[in-house]
């Protein structure tokens, strides 16, 4: 736990004295009719580590792009300024001309001036889309071109510097000869980080730098960033949707909703005393999976459509539990209150009246609770009916290239049982064999040895017609709901297919059956959804449709592959609650595949931890998570960013 302690923010005083490094003044950005960023102002000081937290569509990435003046067309800055105060850093000689002492407006300075400022003064690490390195250039070239552009360093010293930079992010210097595709995702992101620090910039913008990486890799990169930041003293703006990460590593956190910053305060005080109801909601959606009791909440509703003109009042009001009349009439402005700033009428009134405490608990919104014991859910797990048994399965993949054959043991000697009305979570990082196991359960993949038995049926021996018939009993819920729905068909059509194919529902009976499905997954009134196309629904609604489709053939088993990882934090609990209800009420056996231990803790009765194709730990959820015996399981648990635990410690 020493590593965790080193991450404790506050060891370095974030409030650098004097003038700010960067100040954003009334910045607005629009894409055609959509006002993605609305009247945002904030300051960033030298050496400060600031988090920008927001969900998809909140405008956080647009804001980041606007700061660097990298908005993709048709995005443009419609109002406001971004002032860069590049006062010389104390005690450090910089090469080249002295940076400008006077503030410069980044939104208006000439291309050539901007170009000289870029990377020397401010650099960035993009979303880990694995695409921010040029695929046809070696790593070295990509360092070299920026070093040669901005400094006088050439040849061997430049190479040496690149080597140092790579070592700084814990990569061997020999990797500089490699091309990006020869590195793993985590390594690429380390390279991107080293690249960002190549010229010792004053300010680094990190846009979702670890999204999509495995938790353990994510943890180590963030530790690395934080350590380097302390050492070199650059300022960071960390853009992320991941509350745990942002809260844990940032000194100060800004929360963005619908294009506006709605709250801005120190991370340590925000945890204890969130002011804006949205922040409270987000915090409520997060919990420590190791706690005795875990409650996670969600915020009902969906973010506003910023392309619609004439919206009045606070844009969060429709989803807000605490909204009062003035919220619907007048949009609040960000103003000082409590220990920071917030844009909320309710909070403002509460602070004006006293210490700002409100009656409602911090966990505003709907609550979905996972009690310590599972006593409320029928008989003990062991007594529930066995639906599917996987016994001693092995799977080895061979890939042949010329005469060379490489073999990978994807799954080795794994056994487990799926029971009716029970959720079994399959936890592990990518490449651990989760997907292969899921494919065996659905009959897509056959194990080399071992068996998969569904009742009397040997799933691993099914072919052709038998396999098709078996599919009725096993349904899938995918990770990306939008990709899982055919964009050319209406929701009604999509849901009619499994009904026609598996249930022989036809003609007039079809529509009521579809409506029933939609109502069952909480899309009500159903008639308003039947004619809609997937793109007209929010992510959460789309995922509900995917769940409805899985329910259509009345399956015994549902395999849910990361069903909430693509969804916004504030609505994840909503889908978990839906899955939970369906499993309990309809006695479905669910295989819940995830890398997210919090959701496993909340939803699952049993947890199987998979590592390199082997089952390293399994048992009742609470026992596995609270009393992990295996080293790998503990490593997974430790990698979860956990602001709550840290603050308490």
């Amino acid at each position, binding site marked *: 736990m020493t590593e965790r302690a080193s991450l404790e923010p506050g060891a370095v005083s974030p409030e650098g004295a004097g003038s700010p490094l960067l100040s954003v003044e009334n910045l607005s950005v629009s894409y055609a009719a959509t006002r993605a960023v609305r009247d945002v102002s904030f300051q960033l000081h030298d050496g400060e580590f600031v988090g920008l937290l927001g969900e998809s569509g909140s405008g956080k990435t647009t804001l980041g792009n606007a700061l660097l003046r990298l908005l*993709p067309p048709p995005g443009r800055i419609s109002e406001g300024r971004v002032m860069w105060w590049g006062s010389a850093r104390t005690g450090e000689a910089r090469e080249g001309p002295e940076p400008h002492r006077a503030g410069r407006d980044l939104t208006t300075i000439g291309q050539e001036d901007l170009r000289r400022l*870029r990377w*020397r003064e401010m650099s960035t690490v*993009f979303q880990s889309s694995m695409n921010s390195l040029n695929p046809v*250039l070696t790593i070295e070239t990509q360092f070299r*071109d920026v070093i040669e552009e901005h400094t006088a360093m050439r040849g061997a010293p430049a190479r040496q510097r690149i080597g140092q930079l790579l070592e700084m992010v814990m990569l061997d210097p020999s990797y500089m000869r490699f091309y990006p595709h020869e590195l793993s995702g985590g390594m690429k992101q380390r390279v991107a980080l080293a690249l960002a620090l190549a010229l010792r910039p004053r300010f680094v913008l990190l846009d979702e730098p670890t999204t999509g990486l495995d938790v353990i890799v994510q943890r180590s990169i963030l530790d690395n960033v934080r350590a380097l930041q302390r050492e070199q003293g650059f300022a960071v703006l960390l853009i992320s949707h991941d509350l745990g990460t942002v809260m844990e590593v940032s000194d100060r956190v800004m929360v963005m909703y619908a294009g506006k910053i709605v709250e801005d305060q120190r991370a340590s005080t925000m945890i204890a005393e969130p002011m804006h109801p949205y922040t409270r909601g987000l915090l409520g959606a997060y919990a420590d999976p190791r706690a005795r009791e875990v409650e996670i909440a969600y915020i009902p509703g969906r973010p506003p459509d910023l392309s619609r003109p004439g919206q009045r009042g606070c844009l969060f009001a429709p989803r807000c539990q605490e909204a009062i009349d003035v919220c619907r009439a007048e949009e609040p402005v960000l103003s000082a209150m409590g220990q920071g700033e917030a844009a909320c009428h309710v909070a403002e009134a509460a602070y004006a009246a006293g210490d700002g405490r409100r009656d409602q608990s911090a966990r505003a919104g709907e609550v979905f609770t996972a009690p310590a014991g599972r006593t409320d859910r029928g008989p003990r797990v062991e007594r529930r009916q066995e639906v599917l048994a996987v016994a001693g399965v092995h799977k080895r993949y061979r890939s042949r290239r*010329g005469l060379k054959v490489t073999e990978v043991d994807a799954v080795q000697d794994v056994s487990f049982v799926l029971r009716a009305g029970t959720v079994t979570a399959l936890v592990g990082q990518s490449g651990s064999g989760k997907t292969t196991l899921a494919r065996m359960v659905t009959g897509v993949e056959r194990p080399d040895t071992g068996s998969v038995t569904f009742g009397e049926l040997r799933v691993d021996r099914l072919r052709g017609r038998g396999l098709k018939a078996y599919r009725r009993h096993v349904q899938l819920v995918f990770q990306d709901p939008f990709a899982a729905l055919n964009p050319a068909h209406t929701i009604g059509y999509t849901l009619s297919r499994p009904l026609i194919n598996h249930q022989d529902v036809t003609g007039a009976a079809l529509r009521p059956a579809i409506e029933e499905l939609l109502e069952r997954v909480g899309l009500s009134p159903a008639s308003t959804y039947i004619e809609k196309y997937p793109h007209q629904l929010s992510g959460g609604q789309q995922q509900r449709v995917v769940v409805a489709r899985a329910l259509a053939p009345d399956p015994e088993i549902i395999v849910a592959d990361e069903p909430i990882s693509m969804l916004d934090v504030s609505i994840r609990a909503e889908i978990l609650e839906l899955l939970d209800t369906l499993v309990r009420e309809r006695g479905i056996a669910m295989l819940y595949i995830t890398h997210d231990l919090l959701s496993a803790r909340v939803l699952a009765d049993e947890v199987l931890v998979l590592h390199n194709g082997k089952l390293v730990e399994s048992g009742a959820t609470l026992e596995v998570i609270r009393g992990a015996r295996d080293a790998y399981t503990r490593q997974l648990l430790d990698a979860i960013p956990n602001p709550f635990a840290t603050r308490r410690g």
Partner: protein
Amino acid sequence: MRYFVSRVMFFVLTLWAAVTLNFIIPRLQPGDPAQTMVQRLAGQSEAIDPAAIRAVQIMLGLPTGSIFEQYVDYLQAVVRGDFGISYTYFPYTVTHMIAEALPWTIVLVGVTHVLGFVIGTLLGAAAAWKRNGKFDTVVSLGSTFIGTLPFFWIALILIYVLAFTLRWFPEAGGYSGEIDPAWSWAFFGDAIYHGILPALSLLITAPIGWIMGMRNNMVHTLGEDYTRLALAKGLRQRRVALTYSARVAILPNVTGFALGLGTILGGTVMVEMIFGYPGMGKLMFDAISNRDYPLMQTIFLFTTIGVLLANLCADILYGVLDPRVRREAQT
């Protein structure tokens, strides 16, 4: 390195297959070429003298012996470059005829192919870099418009305006009758003068595909994170455009270009016919209309070899330009 070796081995294998097919297919055809030839010389109604057929067979050097011996002879002949005697241009050998026609085609089609690719790629890249600007609009709309025009129509308009009405260029032919085809400056000048119109008509349409391809690819790579990162790095615009955006965008075009090289050997039948140009296209047309089997067969063999060589070229070029391909072959 393994990547390149495997590509070359693949080339040798397909080449052998192509050469062998070229041997087998004519032998599957019904009829006797000697008989056909005598028939044509004598006229349809005449009875054919078997002695005449025998004479023609010997004259043409038609194969004898078992199929295996024939195959070995054939392979040896191919290596020697001996493809027999042309029926149409008797007594010239096929090799001679092809040697006459090939340089014309290689110069005309080769030069326009390369120029078309270079011009098209540059225009496409420029249009993408300044996308939605004036230049882009003109180039995109212009190439879409010209792309809809039939090629022969453009050629005919050019002949009508530049050759027939204005009399700036000759209407047809590869060189003037009064100059002897020889290695002289006068002859070269004359050949280039004759080549301008066909080249121009090829050059109007050739870049269209490259423009569209390059523009679309590059608009895509311009939106990629690595291009945006290059901008954020404060690199010069030119370097961002060339090393980051265009460098990746050009990859698919390079394949198309290299594959296109293969068709050069076959010439372009349409241009050569319209302009009466003495290249491979015209030779092939004549061979087909006269049922000149040895000539046809050899031209087909050349075309096949051309395409195979171009494929090899494309693979090697791609391997050089795209490090990702090299690795795929290794693992």
